């Protein structure tokens, strides 16, 4: 920002150009994927590049007819939405308590929660599979996927909500208390309306993370509760095979997120930077 004042004509043209070249490079792989999804499997592996092919929707028809795309998509929507709602229901009171009634250990608890994100999932995968499959019998159910997705994202959700809530002046909450508003009222009528942007960003981000989660959803489901990640995983083939089809599946799996992200740019950026970018 500060350099703008003394920037020459040269740099005023150069920086945006460089920036847009970078943006193009970054966007190219996504473009390629969408592009390939309109090619037949045979066309997809031909070395001739861009425009020497006939665009076709065959892959998409194939996907919806033979691979039950809508069931996977429905599962993704159901599990991601409910996991997000559950995470917010649990996370809002927790973040509220931490932000407005911090104890000596609040910071430690936050750090500890975040540190669980860094543990290698591989170390607990076997016990988890065993527990859910053989002991609880909830393997491959929506319930399990929702709980797991919620638990995975809960640390991030609480942390984000905590940073947003912390920005709200304590006095406002206290004023509410003076007026005899109870805790639930404080959360519902004061906190959430005030931190609405933050809550929305958190929800959006949580939803995206749930949608993308592959490690656990692929391994804790087979058919019943399988999400789009599982569909992609199942369609993976040895190199060079079915690229058109696989692109279509991938495009259809990330499409909703790309669209959602475009319309919620502000929330997405705000969410990802924990509100620091205004």
């Amino acid at each position, binding site marked *: 920002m*500060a*350099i703008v004042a003394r920037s020459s004509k040269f740099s005023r043209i150069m*920086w*945006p150009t460089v*920036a*847009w070249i*970078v*943006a193009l490079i*970054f966007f190219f*792989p996504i473009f390629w994927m969408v592009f390939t999804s309109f090619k037949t499997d045979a066309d*997809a*592996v031909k*070395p*001739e*590049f861009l425009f020497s092919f006939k665009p076709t929707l065959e892959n998409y028809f194939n996907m919806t007819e033979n691979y039950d795309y809508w069931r996977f998509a429905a599962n993704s929507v159901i599990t991601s939405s409910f996991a997000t709602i559950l995470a917010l229901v*649990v996370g809002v*009171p*927790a973040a*509220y*308590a931490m932000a407005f009634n911090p104890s000596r250990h609040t*910071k430690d*608890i936050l*750090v500890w*929660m*975040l*540190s*669980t994100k*860094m543990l*290698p999932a*591989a*170390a*607990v*995968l*076997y*016990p988890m599979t065993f*527990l859910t499959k*053989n*002991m609880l019998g909830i393997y491959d159910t929506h319930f399990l996927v929702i709980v797991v997705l*919620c638990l995975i994202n*809960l640390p991030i959700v609480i942390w984000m909500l905590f940073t947003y809530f912390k920005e709200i002046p304590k006095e406002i909450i206290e004023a509410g*208390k003076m007026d*005899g508003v*109870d*805790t639930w009222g404080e959360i519902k009528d004061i906190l959430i309306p005030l931190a609405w942007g933050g809550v929305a960003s958190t929800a959006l981000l949580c939803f995206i993370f749930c*949608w*993308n989660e592959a490690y656990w959803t692929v391994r804790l489901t087979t058919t019943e509760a399988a999400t789009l990640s599982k569909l*992609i*995983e199942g369609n993976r083939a040895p190199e060079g095979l079915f690229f058109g089809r696989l692109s279509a599946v*991938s495009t259809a*799996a*990330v499409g909703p997120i*790309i669209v959602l*992200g475009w319309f919620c*740019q502000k929330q997405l950026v705000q969410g*990802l*930077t*924990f509100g*620091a*970018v*205004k």
Partner: protein
Amino acid sequence: MAHAQRPSQLFRNLSAKIAAIPMIFTALVVFVGGTLWTITYSFTGSKLLPKKIFEWFDLFSIPVPSWIAKDGALDFSIPVGFVEKSFVGLKQYDRLWGENRWLISIENLFIYGICSLIFSLLIGFILAALLDQKIRFENTFRTILLYPFALSFIVTGLVWQWLLNPEFGVQSVIRDLGWSGFTFDPLYNAEIVIFGILFAGLWQGTGFIMCLMLAGLRGIDEDIWKAARVDGIPMWKTYIFIVIPMMRPVFITTLVIIAAGIVKVYDLVVAQTSGGPGIASEVPAKYVYDKMFQAQNLGQGFAASTMMLLSVMIVLIPWAYLEFGGKKKNG
């Protein structure tokens, strides 16, 4: 007033406690339980779990393993007996560190980790500084750079598998354009395959790092820039000696996020190379998974995951202590 506050105080603590239950549950059952299990079985020579642990009876029509007695008390004699019988001490670890595949996994993770750390920070910061120069359509630019981060690792891996394929990816496109000697096939070259995976990882994560850095840059007072300019300090010096030290908290958040991403490289490897060519791009998480679910060699898998846990602890504990243990004393 004090009267009115009392119950809400109580309820507030209650809500905090209720909110903490799922976390505590996960921590106990999944992390502590799973970790203990993992560590214990890493000292056994088990190929598969013993049959007896799989025997069930109905307790309130919920299937319960037979070593949980009817009154709910735990009878550990079966699992304990099993561990005793198949106890092999450190033999699994011995074998682990003697296995080439594991050594390659460790080396790969190390290279990937270091490079991803350096390049994410470097590229992320440069891009953020670039974007800080007041560029039109800044939001669109930022969203485009963030898109990769909104894609799952599996999709990222697949896309880059295609891009880096020598027959129809970047290599063939550039050869088509006339440079016929051009070679760019990192995924098919055992020497550099891990860098092919690094490309995908950087593509996915850098936009996010950039956003964090940009947030940090925007948080720096305009006056500092002005002061530096008045003093005639060149721009790059201002960045290195003034701005970056001021952004320490942002850098720490970024480091944590990058570290969490490094642990997750598994999905990327599986989607891009499945560990190939040969075993050149194996990573520890994949080793663990393959030993447990494919090779049915549980003891070995558990030993490997114990090593992973241990290394995470070695990194995490000093960091948490330095970052948060010291501050507590001050305030």
